[in-house]
């Protein structure tokens, strides 16, 4: 639907210059959000909606839209946050300076692609929309295409996400091969059978590669910080709330299929937790507001991913299900929370950038009294991100810690030994999350006001720009106070979609969220620990921040990416320069050696070589003599010192061949061969005679070993093939027919001539054409002379 709207955007942009195009665009996601909202009640009861549109029926490809709890939640996020982002962008982008029509066309394209991803039930259409999100994201990151950094960031994200998308396509194709259907729902129903299939692990790995690249998991997260060159509404929308969650969606959607695998559980959980730690650790190092938020997004996505991995554990265990059932719920719950607070934080970062002219945290400070509303929103978002009450981040962090603590209770997959690591890493990562959340607010809004370092005179943002972040911040608080309303309406249907093997309807998900459990839980103690250690570390931050500079630049993943790219560039260049020598002899060498290796290799691999001594014609003395003469003539051609000798040797070979034709009962051939050889030798002599004096060097050909080896190999190959082909006559010749009917049907006695002009007259026609073309070509080459100088003259 938004695709159709996207077509009209330029029209509005051109016709109505005085009204900001964004107002027209705003109607699209807002309407969609309302339409999706009408489904909430029914989906919460466990109903699903499907619609099908055949696309390529002969290939079993159709656009199947499928709306269950998970898709509906994502659709609402996409359209809801989409509306807020469009509203924000109306005030963020200047209607005179910016190319608004491009922006909104890309944005609507992205929105439709994203909706397509989350609602597709068909693997191929899912892939189609998946790549469409990559492309539209590429366009949006490179929106200010005159800047180098934008183009580099766009290229990087394109390469990584499209590369991962292709891997995912491979995984999809393997799934189709295993299950025989493209429909995700049908694949889920046959999930137990798939697990034993030999391709199962491969499709799992490929699919995860796609999800990890899109969702910026370790080590593929590197494109996300560079994608911050996009306009801020884009960063807020794509790179915090929607596109980076496509990978999360993919993992959640395919959990019922792959949860049976130990590899899946470990990969998703392990990579998620590693990303969580890595992202939070490096977020503290950033000096750019959006850089902090980018690493924070990476880290939070890791958190959600690890929860999804842990939710797959429930597939294996029935007895201790109570402890791990929080994982899927927490993942979805945090997904919503993250979309709210990260969206608002990005918008605040954009406002700060817009009003002060810089995003560099070292230049900012003391904006609290100048921009009080922005400060409030930023504080709410940051505290929620840090996981403090009374904000929604607290609830999801508690459930996250619960799930991580529960992991060590399982006695399979090595969780009883390694499982203890998860809560520890999660706890350390949460401390870093706490630090960077405070760092973000404190460095921007508190401390000393430094007006001399700011490009603009800062002041509070216009109210229109503030509406969206304020709405999102309100959500952050509201969700904390009514978590169970959100849980019942949105989260439980989604959880049921992720874990259909546990729950048959959303009502079966028996989870009740509360901020205070009535007694002291271990998670609560951990949160207290996070706050204490976090505050301590934050206060002493200037003392140990220097540690980051110790971390060697050479080991960063960006450096590895650059090295790989440069290496590929240089290496391939070198490779092609090595092979593409512009020398015809080298190419001929490659070709001949290639042909020889393939032919001789296949001859022996297929055991096709044999010699049959019978069925050969008798050896007669003159044939033997002629063969010797032919060999000698050929040797003369090779060894000839002067070219004249070589030409005469070639002539001798030609006449010997003619004599062979005589002996082997081919009078017509002998005649033609004699005549043509004569003409050819004359032509050769002419070419020889016209050699310019300048470069004439009469010398014997220099002996070269590689040439000799190749030519001998080709000779042996031809001999072997000739022998084998001769020795295995599979079907008799059809020549008997010609012999029997040449007179009765064609009325001639000379069978060769009748074949040429009667049975196979078409060959002759085109052979005449060849001669004609050759003649005309020769004439043209000699007559039509236009040397370079004349040509240049004419061109002028």
């Amino acid at each position, binding site marked *: 639907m938004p695709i159709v709207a996207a077509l009209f955007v330029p029209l509005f942009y051109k016709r109505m210059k005085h009204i900001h195009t964004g107002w027209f665009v705003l109607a699209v996601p807002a309407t969609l959000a309302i339409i999706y909202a009408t489904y909430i009640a029914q989906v919460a009861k466990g109903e699903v909606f499907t619609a099908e549109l055949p696309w390529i029926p002969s290939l079993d490809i159709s656009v199947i839209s499928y709306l269950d709890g998970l898709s509906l939640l994502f659709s609402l996020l996409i359209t809801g946050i989409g509306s807020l982002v469009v509203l924000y962008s109306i005030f963020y982008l200047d209607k005179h300076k910016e190319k608004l029509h491009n922006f909104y066309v890309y944005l609507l394209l992205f929105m439709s692609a994203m909706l397509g991803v989350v609602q597709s039930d068909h693997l191929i259409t899912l892939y189609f929309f998946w790549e469409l999100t990559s492309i539209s994201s590429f366009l949006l990151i490179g929106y200010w295409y005159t800047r180098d950094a934008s183009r580099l960031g766009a290229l990087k994200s394109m390469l990584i996400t499209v590369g991962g998308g292709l891997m995912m396509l491979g995984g999809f194709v393997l799934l189709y091969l295993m299950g025989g259907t493209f429909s995700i729902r049908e694949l889920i129903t046959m999930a137990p059978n798939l697990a034993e299939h030999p391709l199962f692990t491969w499709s799992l790995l490929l699919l995860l590669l796609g999800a990890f690249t899109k969702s910026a998991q370790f080590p593929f997260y590197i494109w996300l910080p560079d994608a911050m060159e996009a306009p801020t509404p884009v960063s807020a929308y794509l790179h915090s709330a929607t596109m980076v969650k496509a990978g999360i969606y993919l993992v959640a959607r395919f959990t019922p299929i792959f949860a049976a695998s130990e590899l899946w559980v470990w990969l998703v959980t392990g990579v998620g937790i590693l990303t969580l730690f890595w992202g939070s650790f490096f977020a503290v190092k950033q000096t750019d507001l959006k850089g902090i938020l980018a690493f924070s997004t990476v880290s939070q996505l890791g958190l959600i991913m690890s929860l999804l991995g842990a939710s797959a554990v429930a597939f294996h265990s029935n007895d201790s299900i109570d402890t791990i059932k929080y994982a899927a719920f927490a993942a979805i719950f945090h997904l919503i929370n993250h979309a709210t607070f990260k969206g608002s934080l990005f918008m605040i970062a954009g406002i700060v950038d817009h009003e002060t002219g810089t995003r560099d945290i070292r230049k900012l400070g003391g904006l609290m009294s100048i921009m009080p509303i922005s400060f409030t929103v930023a504080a709410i978002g940051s505290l929620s991100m840090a996981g403090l009450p009374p904000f929604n981040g607290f609830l999801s962090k508690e459930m996250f810690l619960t799930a991580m603590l529960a992991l060590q209770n399982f006695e399979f997959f090595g969780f009883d030994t390694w499982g203890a690591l998860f809560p520890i890493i999660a706890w350390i990562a949460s401390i870093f999350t706490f630090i960077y959340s405070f760092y973000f607010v404190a460095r921007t809004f508190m401390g000393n006001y430094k007006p001399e370092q700011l490009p603009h005179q800062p002041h509070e943002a216009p109210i229109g720009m503030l509406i969206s972040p304020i709405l999102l911040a309100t959500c952050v608080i509201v969700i904390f106070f009514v978590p169970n309303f959100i849980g019942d309406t949105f989260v439980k249907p989604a959880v049921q979609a992720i874990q259909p093997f546990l729950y048959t309807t959303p009502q079966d998900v028996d989870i009740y969220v509360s901020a205070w459990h009535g007694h002291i839980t271990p998670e609560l103690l951990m949160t207290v620990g996070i706050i204490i250690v976090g505050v301590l570390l934050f206060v002493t931050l200037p003392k140990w921040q220097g540690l980051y500079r110790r971390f060697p630049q050479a080991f960063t993943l960006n450096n590895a990416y650059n090295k790989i790219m440069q290496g590929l560039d240089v290496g391939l260049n070198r490779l092609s320069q090595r092979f593409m020598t512009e020398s015809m002899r080298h190419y*001929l060498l490659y070709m001949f050696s290639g042909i020889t290796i393939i032919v001789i290799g296949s001859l022996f691999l297929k055991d096709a070589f044999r010699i049959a001594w019978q069925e050969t014609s008798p050896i007669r003395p003159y044939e033997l003599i002629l063969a010797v003469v032919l060999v000698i003539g050929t040797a003369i051609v090779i060894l000839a010192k002067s070219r004249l000798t070589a030409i005469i040797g*070639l002539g001798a070979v030609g006449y010997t061949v003619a004599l062979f034709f005589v002996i082997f009962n081919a009078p017509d051939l002998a005649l033609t061969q004699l005549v043509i050889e004569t003409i050819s030798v004359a032509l050769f002599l002419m070419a020889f005679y016209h050699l310019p004096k300048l470069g004439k060097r009469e010398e014997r050909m220099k002996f070269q070993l590689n040439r000799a080896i190749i030519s001998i190999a080709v000779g042996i190959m031809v001999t072997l093939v000739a022998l084998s082909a001769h020795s295995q006559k599979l079907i008799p010749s059809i020549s008997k027919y010609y012999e029997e009917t040449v007179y009765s049907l064609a009325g001639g006695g000379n069978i060769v001539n009748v074949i040429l002009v009667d049975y196979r007259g078409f060959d002759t026609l085109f052979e005449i054409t060849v001669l004609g073309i050759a003649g005309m070509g020769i004439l043209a*080459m000699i007559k039509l002379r236009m040397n370079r100088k004349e040509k240049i003259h004419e061109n002028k």
Partner: protein
Amino acid sequence: MEIIMAFVIGFLFMAAVYLMLSKSLLRIIIGTGLLSHGAHLLILTMGGLGGEAPPVLSEGAKTFADPLPQALILTAIVISFGVTAFFLVLAYRSYQELKTDDISLMRGSDEDE
């Protein structure tokens, strides 16, 4: 006889390839000439060298040499002649224009602006 011919043809091919890998344009064309001779003989040999008489009915013989390969070779001879003639004139013209016979010196874009 076919087996001896197979070795002779192999030798012809070897010589042809050896010449085609040389530097002189004329030698390359001589190599193609040898190559086509080898190919023609190969077709003839593969058709079988038996048969008492040439494939002309009036001879009244009982077995004929296979006429089909001969027809094919005749076509091939004419075509390879046309191509060889064309190449030779091409070589002749390139002597005139480029003043060299050495293909290792013939590199594109040297004189192009």
